């Protein structure tokens, strides 16, 4: 084959991983008592496409493995096998195993043969275990061959193959299949031209031929099936084993046609078996190459694309309207021009919004993995847990989705493991036996909020405190507010679980979680009531590419402060100013002393208008829990700004998180509040 298959690998992997996710959620949804055939069909279809795809690309290990799964699923689908929890667990395990195999192939790594073998064995044993006694479980040809094999040696096969006219359109090529057959043994092919219509009626893209194939040799039926696997649904296929005692007459009889068909009508067949054998082996021996990494793609809802196209259409209309006005402009058309311009503005804004929207994915991409997690953990720990997902359709930026999944896994795992009590403890505490963990996502302002809440035992403040003291994280006499106490769990090296489980409790989780969330520009909070449960909420900016900003002026310079970090802006009164050791300036605001960061000093702006604190303005900001006041000349206005990287062409600059382009085309720097605080402390 001259096509470079590698170019399709990425698509194959993406689809396969999606298929695996579909299988997983399908399996988890299976209700043991009342099995929904559609569900099993979905699972089966996913397995089937993975098998097909991996076969095409020569990933035989995967296709072989999937084949076993498929057989099991097939029997479930036909109702020949009951769906049992152990079987589902084995299948879930196999899904994981498949995922590992595909990952290994994608990354060009070695497949873990041991684990694959183990999973395959458990699948096989599951297959054999529950195999129905009456043998209905075997598919038809297998039964035939089994029966035949018992009687006498098979000397060959007679196969009648009549493809449906659309076979060629599905990309299948009979001659290729025959060549494949030829590798199994000596093959005689007879074409039946009867179906070929008159030249005037002939559609050259359809296949009107049918074939009779005689294959010599004791070939297992499975090998023949494999060749015809792809065309099963696109042809009529009859196979009959020919036994050594059978005469030529029997063969003819097997075809069920009379002898007047001319065997010479076969054009393409006498190929030497050795040649084709060599050729057919080629793709198998070809080691799967590591797929190209790095490029990432995104699947976009067609609806979104349609909206975009609509908007671009309207934009073009507005533009042509405007140019029409401009061509013969007179003062009387001023109103028209204004209208047109405001329309243009609206369209551009809408277009911008919908383009940004393309990057948005429903958070269910992250949430969907949790039912599995809950299922595994609850069965491992013997807890009864119900997982509720709320607001799965809330949309988040793709980057956020990708980076959010690991922190969320930590949080959910913690809730399942530490939060929810054992059933007997719950009953004793007057709660329902089944614990509930709720994952909720919703929009609030320009933020997305994700909450992980449980109705478990909650955080014990005294215990947290004692632990922190024991670990030397705080002084024994430190005074902490409730909030500060709960935040102790985000300290590195903190874990209150008495003994470590393999699920959680190593104390490396929460500080990493907080760091990841903060890296995304978000923050994480915890609210807990002892005995009632805890809620951890994550606030994240909706998108990483656009931000609501307040522009501030310092001399000739314009900076953007993220609106989310601004608490208030105020005039400075002399009597509220304090100087610590004559240097560090603070401002008394509602009983709190705010450190003042003079922007013109920290950024060396010589053109600053005001150097006396009482003349300028103080912008109170909060970053990573630290409040401070930025001393600036003036506030300019609020606007949405598109974040541009400063690092792309230069490097990181402390105190600056990026740059943006203002309406007049000039560049403005976006301030990084935590960075500024660090800079000021140096």
């Amino acid at each position, binding site marked *: 084959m001259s096509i470079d298959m590698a170019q399709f690998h990425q698509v194959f992997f993406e689809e396969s991983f999606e298929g695996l996710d579909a299988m997983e959620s399908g399996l988890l949804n299976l209700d043991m008592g009342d099995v929904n055939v559609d569900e099993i069909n979905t699972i089966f279809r996913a397995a089937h496409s993975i098998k097909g795809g991996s076969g095409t690309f020569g990933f035989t290990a995967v296709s072989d493995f999937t084949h076993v799964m498929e057989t099991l699923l097939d029997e479930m689908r036909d109702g020949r096998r009951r769906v049992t929890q152990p079987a589902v667990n084995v299948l879930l395990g196999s899904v994981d195993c498949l995922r590992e195999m595909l990952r290994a192939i994608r990354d060009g790594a070695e497949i873990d043969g041991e684990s694959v073998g183990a999973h395959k064995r458990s699948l096989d044993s599951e297959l054999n275990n529950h195999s129905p006694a009456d043998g209905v479980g075997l598919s038809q040809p297998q039964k035939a061959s089994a029966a035949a094999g018992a009687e006498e040696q098979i000397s060959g096969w007679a196969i009648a193959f009549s493809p449906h006219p659309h076979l060629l359109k599905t990309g299948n090529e009979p001659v290729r299949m025959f060549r494949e057959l030829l590798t199994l043994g000596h093959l005689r092919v007879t074409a039946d031209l009867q179906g070929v219509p008159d030249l005037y009626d002939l559609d050259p893209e359809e296949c009107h031929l049918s074939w009779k194939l005689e294959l010599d040799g004791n070939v297992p039926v499975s090998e023949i099936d494999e060749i015809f696997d792809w065309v099963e649904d696109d042809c009529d296929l009859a196979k009959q084993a020919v036994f050594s005692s059978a005469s030529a007459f029997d063969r003819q009889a097997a075809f069920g046609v009379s002898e007047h068909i001319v065997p010479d009508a076969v054009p393409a067949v006498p190929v030497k078996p050795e040649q084709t054998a060599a050729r057919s082996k080629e793709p198998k021996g070809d080691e799967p190459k590591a797929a190209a990494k790095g490029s990432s793609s995104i699947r976009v809802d067609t609806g979104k694309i349609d909206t975009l196209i609509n908007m671009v259409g309207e934009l073009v209309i507005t533009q042509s309207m405007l140019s029409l006005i401009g061509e013969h402009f007179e003062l009387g058309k001023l109103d028209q021009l204004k209208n047109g311009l405001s329309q243009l503005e609206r369209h551009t804004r809408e277009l911008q919004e919908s383009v940004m929207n393309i990057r948005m994915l429903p958070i269910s991409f992250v949430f969907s993995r949790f039912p599995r997690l809950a299922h595994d953990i609850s069965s491992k720990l013997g807890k009864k847990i119900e997982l509720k997902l709320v607001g799965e359709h809330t949309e988040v930026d793709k980057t956020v989705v990708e980076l959010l999944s690991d922190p969320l896994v930590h949080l959910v795992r913690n809730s399942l493991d530490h939060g929810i009590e054992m059933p007997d403890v719950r009953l004793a505490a007057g709660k329902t036996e089944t614990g509930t963990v709720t994952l909720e996502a919703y929009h609030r302002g320009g933020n997305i909020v994700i909450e992980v809440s449980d109705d478990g035992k909650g955080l014990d403040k005294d215990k947290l405190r004692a632990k922190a003291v024991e670990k030397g994280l705080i002084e024994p006499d430190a005074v902490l507010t409730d909030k500060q106490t709960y935040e102790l769990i985000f300290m590195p090296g903190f874990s209150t679980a008495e003994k470590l489980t393999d699920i959680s409790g190593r104390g490396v989780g929460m500080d990493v979680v907080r760091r990841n969330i903060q890296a995304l520009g978000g923050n994480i909070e915890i609210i807990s009531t002892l005995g009632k449960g805890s809620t951890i909420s994550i606030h994240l900016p909706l998108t990483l590419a656009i931000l609501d900003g307040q522009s501030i002026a310092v001399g000739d310079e314009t900076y953007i402060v993220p609106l989310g970090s601004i608490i208030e802006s105020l005039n400075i009164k002399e009597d509220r100013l304090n100087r610590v050791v004559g240097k560090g300036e603070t401002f008394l605001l509602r009983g709190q002393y705010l450190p003042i960061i003079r922007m013109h000093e920290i950024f060396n702006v010589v053109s600053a208008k005001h150097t006396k604190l009482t003349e300028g303005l103080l912008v109170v900001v909060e970053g990573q829990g630290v409040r401070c006041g930025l001393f600036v000349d003036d506030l300019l206005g609020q606007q949405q700004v598109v974040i541009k*990287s400063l690092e792309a*062409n230069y*490097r990181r*600059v*402390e105190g600056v998180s990026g740059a943006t*382009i203002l309406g007049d085309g000039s*560049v403005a*720097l976006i301030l990084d509040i935590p960075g500024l605080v660090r800079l000021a402390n140096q």
Partner: protein
Amino acid sequence: MTAEAKSDARSEQFLTFELAGEAYGIEILKVQEIRGWEPIRKIPNTPAYLKGALNLRGSIVPIVDLRERFNMEKIEYTPTTVVIVMCIQTESTGTTVMGIVADAVSDVLDIDLNEIKASPNLGAKINTRYIRGMYVGKTNMVMLLDVDKLLNPDEFMDIAVLPLAAESK
């Protein structure tokens, strides 16, 4: 004909520009565009020769003043002052876009690579690390700069310390 013969693999085109009366040359394939000087946004806490950042059709491009970079006398920008925007290749950061401020652009020269002379050894006083070589033209001498080394963002920090330290003395 002669022009064609010159543009074979053994010769390269260089854009020459003026800086305090001296001629400098850079590989023309590195040059993305030449613009007039316009006020740009300062980036705080960066070396003085980094004049700031420019909006170049949506991407943020840092601009380096070569006079200040080479510790030459500062002058007021004139109408002939140009910003030469270049693509820089570095190992650590890949391709980056940066601009340099020069007094004026002069010419495009076809230079036979064999005619490029190694930069002379000027002793420890002058660092010739950023000079690729010298070319002696009919009327003057052109210093050919290695912009990949000269504008490597990683080097900014190291040298940044030097002028500041010198000033404080």
